C-alpha cells in the first residue's frame, strides 16, 4: 500500500475517522491530567521513591 492509498484509507474508511477523533480527545485528557500533576508536584528527583 503506497502513501496515497493509506491516506485515502484513513480519510474514507468508516470508523477510522471516529477512531482518529477519539484518539485526539483521549490523548488530550491524559496529557492534561499529567500536566495538572506536574504543576502541583513537579518532576520527581531522579531515583526518588514516588510519594504515597
Amino acid at each position: 500500500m503506497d502513501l496515497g492509498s493509506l491516506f485515502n484509507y484513513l480519510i474514507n474508511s468508516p470508523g477510522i475517522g471516529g477512531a482518529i477523533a477519539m484518539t485526539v480527545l483521549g490523548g488530550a485528557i491524559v496529557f492534561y491530567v499529567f500536566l495538572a500533576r506536574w504543576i502541583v508536584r513537579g518532576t520527581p528527583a531522579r531515583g526518588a521513591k514516588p510519594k504515597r
Partner: protein
Amino acid sequence: MHPHNPHESIILAPLRVITRGDKLLWLTLFGVFLAGLVVWIYQFVLGLGVTGLNRPVYWGIYLTNFVFFIGLAHSGTFISAILRVAGAGWRTPLTRAAEAITLFSLPFGVMSILCDMGRPDRILNLVFYGRFQSPLLWDVTAVGLYLLSSIFFFYFSLIPDIALCRDRLTDAPRWRRRMYEVLALGWQGTPDQFRRLDRVLDGMAIFMSMVVVTVHTVVSWIFGMTLQPGWHTALIGPFFLLGAIFSGTTAVVIVLAVLRKVYHLEKVLTPDLFNSLRKLLIVFTLGWSYMMGAEFLTTGYGNMTEEMVVLNDKFSGQYAPIFWTMVVLVFVVPLFIFLVKGKKSLGWLVGACVLVNIGMWLERFIVIVPTEASPRLLPYLGGGAYQPTWVEAVITLSLFAGMFLLYAVFTRFFPIVPIWETAEHHVGHAVEAAAIAEAK
C-alpha cells in the same frame, strides 16, 4: 501560603452566603431548563415534524443556537488567552468570568446539535462509523478538543484560589470543604508551584489562542464546505471568528457588569476595565462590519444567479426585516454608543452589548436560513420557507436558562475574580509574592 490580595475579602464575600434570592433564581432557571427537557422528549417521541424544520430548511433555530453558543464560548478563553500572551495586566480581573462563559456555553452548543437530530441516539455513529472526510467529524474533534482544553485551562488557573477557599472558608459545610480539598490537589502555594503554573498557563495561552482560531474556522466549514450560495466562500472562516469574538466580548461586558452590581465588586471591576473592553469592542464592531461588507461586495459583484437569490432575499426579500434589524442592532446603534456614550456610562455600554448579542443571534439566523431556503437545487430555488414553532422556542429558552443556571451557581461556590492573579497585579508577581510570604 497565598499571595496577599487587598481585595480578598470582597471577592470571597459572595461565597460565604447563599441568599433566598439565589435559591429562587436557581429554581426558576432549573424549572425552565426542565420544561425544555420535557418538550425535547415530546419532540423526540413525535419527531421533528413538531418543529418548523422541513425540506429544504433542515437547520433552523437549533443550528443558530449552536453557532451562537460556540461563538460565545470562543471569545471567553480567547480574550483571556490572547491578553495573557500580550501581557495586558488589566485583563486579570476579567479572565475567570470570561473563561466561565466558555465553559458553560459550550455544552449547550453541543446540546443544540442533539436537539436538531431526529435520532440523537445515532450521535455515536460518528465514533463507530465516522469518516474523517466529513467536516462534521472535524467539528466534533475540534470542538471536543477546545472544550477539554478550556476546562483544563480554566481549572489550572483556579487551583490556587480553590486552595485559598479550602484554607479560608473553614466555616463552610463539610461537603463543600471536602470539595475544595479534593479540587485543590494538595496545592501549597510554594514559589515552585506558582512558577510551574505560570509556565503552563503561558504555554497554554498560546495554544488556546491558536485553537480558538482553528476551531471556529472548522465550525464555519460545516457551512463553507458545501457548495451552497452564501456559504461557499473562503471568507466564512474569518467572518465567523470575528463575529464570535465580537459577540463573546459583549457577553463578557454584560456578565462583568451584572457581577459587579450583584456582588458589590466595584473596587475590583473598575471603570478602567470596562473602558479597555469598550475600545476593543470598537475595533471588533468595525472589523466585523468590514468583513460583512467584503462578503456582500464579492457576492454582489460576481452576480451569480443562485448567490443573488439569497443576497436579494436578505437585502429586500422575505428576510430583509431580520437582516436590517440585525444591521441596526449589531452595527449602527452599538457603534454610536461605544464611541459617544459608553465611555462615561456603564449602563449605556451594557445596553449596547445586549443589543449586539440579540443582533448576533439574528445574524447567525440570517447566515443559515436564507441559504437553506434557496439552496443550489433548482426545485427549491427561492421556494423554501421556515417558520419556527413553540417547540423550538421553548427548547431555545431552556438552553439559555441552563447556561445562566450553571454560571449563577458557579459564582456562589468559586471566586469569579482570580484572587491570586489580581494579587500578582497588585504586588508585582505571584511568584515573588509567594517567595516573600515564605521568607516571612
